[in-house]
């Protein structure tokens, strides 16, 4: 049975659950894509999900059934058909005013990532205050993939500005080992969701059990990104294996270090995604000073270390 993915009328982080539940992973050697016949409007994470799936497939093993949606132009402009290896039959005239977006980009090494982070800022027409968060998020998410996913295809990333919500939506996907496999090297985890929880806590990394991490890894990257979304009152989602975590919009001022204390939804029974997908929305209306955000992160990080400290002492045994 072929892998199947249906592009609905709408799939953004807020309503992404039903789209992901409709993913049929089955045979990883072929993929059938179907779509809503009228209009398809999706978060960039959906695009990078498709692009990363296609990287593992041989040419000709992807079929698109009756893809007549009027939004086909958008997918062409974002580079999706190129990654799928399918001719869309559409020719796009590129011009500067076309919009603020970053088409799907595959990143396989550190140098390409550094250049990409520099290049995306003018594409998204960001002012300096907004630049801080966006480049931070993209750099850390893609670097996570390059360091931990062990995928030969690297990371797939895309971003789009949405004028109606005045927000930037970012998606990053890989088809690597997934968070559970990665974090299991140093922590005992039974489920994908448990692994996601640990990955979102500050100071926990798959590279070591040691507090403070290794010389190259602290285990704080995803925590920082979730924190940026939290302070920005924005949505954030992680999907890996059968686990799915979604940070819902927050009104709290405090920043909990435990993602399960945050306002969230979670599932551990999603169709298995071999790898990891992360989506983030950043509202440009709510962009706080990055320095204020860092103050909250600093306090939350302190709380996390403090909470773990008693567990590091040996307990006396009373016999």
């Amino acid at each position, binding site marked *: 049975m072929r892998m199947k993915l249906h592009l609905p009328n709408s799939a953004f982080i807020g309503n992404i659950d039903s789209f992901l539940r409709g993913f049929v992973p089955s045979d990883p050697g072929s993929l059938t894509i179907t779509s809503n016949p009228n209009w398809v409007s999706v978060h960039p994470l959906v695009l990078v999900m498709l692009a990363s799936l296609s990287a593992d497939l041989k040419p000709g093993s992807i079929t698109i059934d009756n893809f007549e949606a009027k939004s086909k132009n958008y997918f062409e402009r974002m580079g999706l058909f190129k990654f799928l290896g399918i001719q869309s039959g559409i020719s796009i005239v590129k011009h500067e005013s076309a919009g603020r977006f970053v088409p799907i980009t595959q990143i396989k090494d*550190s*140098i390409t*990532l*550094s250049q990409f*982070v*520099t290049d995306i800022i003018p594409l998204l027409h960001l002012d300096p205050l907004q*630049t*801080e968060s966006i*480049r*931070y998020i993209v*750099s*850390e998410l893609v*670097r996570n993939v390059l*360091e931990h996913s062990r995928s030969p295809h690297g990371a797939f990333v895309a971003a789009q500005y949405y004028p109606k919500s005045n927000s930037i939506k970012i998606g990053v996907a890989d088809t690597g080992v997934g968070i559970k496999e990665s974090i299991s090297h140093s922590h005992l985890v039974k489920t994908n969701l448990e692994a996601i929880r640990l990955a979102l806590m*500050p*100071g926990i990394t798959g590279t070591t059990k*040691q*507090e*403070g*991490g290794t*010389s*190259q*890894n*602290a285990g*704080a*990257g995803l925590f*920082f990104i979730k924190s940026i979304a939290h302070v920005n009152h924005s949505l954030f989602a992680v999907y890996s294996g059968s686990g799915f975590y979604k940070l819902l919009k927050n009104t709290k001022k405090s920043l909990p270090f435990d993602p399960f204390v945050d306002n969230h939804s979670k599932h551990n029974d999603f169709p298995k995604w071999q790898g990891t997908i992360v989506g983030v929305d950043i509202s440009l209306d709510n962009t706080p000073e*990055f*320095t204020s955000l*860092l*103050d909250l*992160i*600093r306090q939350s*990080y*302190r709380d996390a*270390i*403090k909470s773990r*400290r008693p567990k590091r002492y040996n307990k006396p045994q009373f016999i």
Partner: protein
Amino acid sequence: MIINLFKLTGDFAENKDTAQSIRLEHILPGLTQGKTITIDFDGVTGTTQSFVHALISDPIRQFGGGVLDRLKFKNCSPVVQKIIVIVTEYMQASDL
């Protein structure tokens, strides 16, 4: 010894491979020789926690928190300063 970061990283210091090279080729050897190291962030407008961690966590672990008397940070923007503070705090807290 002064390390001019901008020449190596550009205005956004995020490449951890670069941080590792600076740490291994300049910071750790300099500290081992008893030198004072100044990392000059002039022109660097932003950085990531991962970059700063890759740059200075190992020196703090190897030499202890006291190394911050010999490892100095110059021309840091408020954002860069705060990220450095976060990393130095959790590294020292980890040793308690």
